[in-house]
């Protein structure tokens, strides 16, 4: 069974072919490194999967069921979560508040519904523990390291029982130690049976965690192979076009 399967996805903007017959299958718990040069179609592919816009042609299957996403919420309901590059986090709120942002649990006191902070804290502490992160639920996010902020953003995806998490350049602007932290988080997700699509320019990061490497060039899928059967040199060649196909 595949968590997500793309069949002959094409996306066209007027005369520009952003995606050309892209087919891809992702198994549960699989970590896929999605690579490609700027403008190769990575973000277009992610946006199609995340429901930001529909493909011009082709099918998307989630758990072998054909789906059609009209808006990001549809994709979210199907178990597809996106961790954005800027993380979509509020610095002025606590880690727990950020995890539950937009879906705060409430309990009733008489006629009023109040935010259930106790539950938010214990649940997010549990999620951070699952991610083996040292993030503390009560801490304000603006005092946190890049790795901890990633943990907050990723805990949010755990909360909604995501099947697949799309991560857009999570290691682009953080320190070496924090990169290790983020890669650990990705492994944790994978251990919990959640698939991860890691969009990254950083070759070492991709080879460190990815089970499979996928390369896009000018909207075409030119490689889809096990990371252990490939090498950074080969992938670089595929990205630049020095190697035609793998």
């Amino acid at each position, binding site marked *: 069974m595949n968590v997500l399967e793309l069949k002959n996805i094409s996306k066209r903007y007027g005369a520009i072919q952003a995606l050309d017959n892209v087919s891809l299958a992702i198994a549960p718990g699989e970590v896929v490194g999605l690579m490609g040069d700027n403008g190769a179609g990575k973000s277009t592919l992610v946006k199609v999967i995340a429901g930001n816009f529909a493909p011009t042609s082709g099918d998307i299957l989630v758990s072998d069921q054909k789906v059609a996403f009209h808006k990001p919420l549809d994709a979210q309901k199907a178990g597809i979560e996106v961790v954005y590059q800027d993380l979509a986090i509020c610095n002025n709120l606590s880690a727990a508040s950020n995890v539950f*942002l*937009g879906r705060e649990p409430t309990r009733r006191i008489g006629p009023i519904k109040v935010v259930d902070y106790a539950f938010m804290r*214990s649940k997010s502490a549990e999620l951070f523990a699952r991610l083996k992160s040292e993030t503390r639920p009560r801490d304000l996010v603006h005092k946190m390291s890049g790795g901890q902020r990633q943990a907050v953003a990723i805990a949010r995806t755990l909360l909604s029982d995501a099947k697949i998490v799309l991560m857009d350049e999570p290691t682009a602007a953080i320190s070496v130690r924090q990169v290790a932290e983020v890669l650990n988080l990705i492994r944790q997700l994978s251990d919990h049976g959640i698939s991860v699509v890691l969009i990254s320019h950083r070759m070492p990061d991709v080879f460190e965690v990815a089970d499979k490497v996928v390369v896009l060039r000018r909207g075409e899928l030119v490689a889809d192979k096990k990371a252990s059967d490939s090498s950074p040199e080969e992938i670089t060649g595929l990205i630049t076009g020095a190697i035609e196909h793998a």
Partner: protein
Amino acid sequence: MATPTLAEVINRSQHHGLIARITSQQIFWVFMAAVFACLALTLLTDSFATERNLFNVTRNFAFVGIIALGMTAVIASGGIDLSVGSTLVISAMTVSVIMSAGMPFWLGCLAALGISLLVGAVNGVLIAYAGMPPFVVTLGMLSVARSLAMVLSDNKMIYEFGPDHDFLLWLGGGSTLGLPHPLIIMVILACLTAFAFRHLRWGQHLFAIGGNENAAVLTGIPVARIKVSVYMFSALMAGITGVLEVGWLGGVTTNLGQAMELTVIAAAVIGGANLAGGGGTAFGAVVGALLIEVIRNSLILLGISTFWQGTFVGSFIVIAVAFDRFRQRKS
């Protein structure tokens, strides 16, 4: 080292001691400044600690305090409301015109608050749905609402309020158990606001919008609806103050609440509301309003020309913001 239990992890927070926690708050220092000013005035003048003067101070600061509650909500959500002074006068004028026409108080009050909410709704819709900058929209409303108040009253002073005349004056100018009514109402509203900020999803969401509007949108928070409600809340606070202030003054003219927005913004900012959005407390708004009123009062009692007031209020805003910048750079 033993692994901490889940409960221990939960209870950890960044500030450990209670004293360290309190002294790290801007409000604490502002509160201390207000207390210090009060003590100094008691020693320096014979007139500050008199019952009459304290009664006046508490009542005056209550008016600014109530509106500052609304302003804090707006500022915390990342906006600004320059139209509060004009909303106050249109509310005051509505209640006055209706009551002087012989209608009962409840009708006038309801109409006044209704008009205020409408003003807030117009502000909110233009800002949230048309995407216009809050500064421009509420600056426009500042002019429009005051002009409408002039149209409504024909720019005449109103001092006869029909059958419920005495009740209106009692409500705004009277006291219960020695406490002026506006003060009592401010305390109640401050408690309600503090509760809403902390314990309602509305509060969580408005602080989230002020912190990172993009994140709020992406996580599915109804940003536009919350923004409209925030401007309506601010206008409602101004409206309530309008009704109370008519009762206190016993008469209303269309220059009521002129330039009040600056004092209110100063109170909110001194009380810790972050003009960049995402920060502010109800208690802070009240303490900020208190400090401004004490300073204003002290200028009068110390025989310093009231022309200096604007200098103080304006400098306060700048100093409070500078203080905040400085603190952020340090951390």
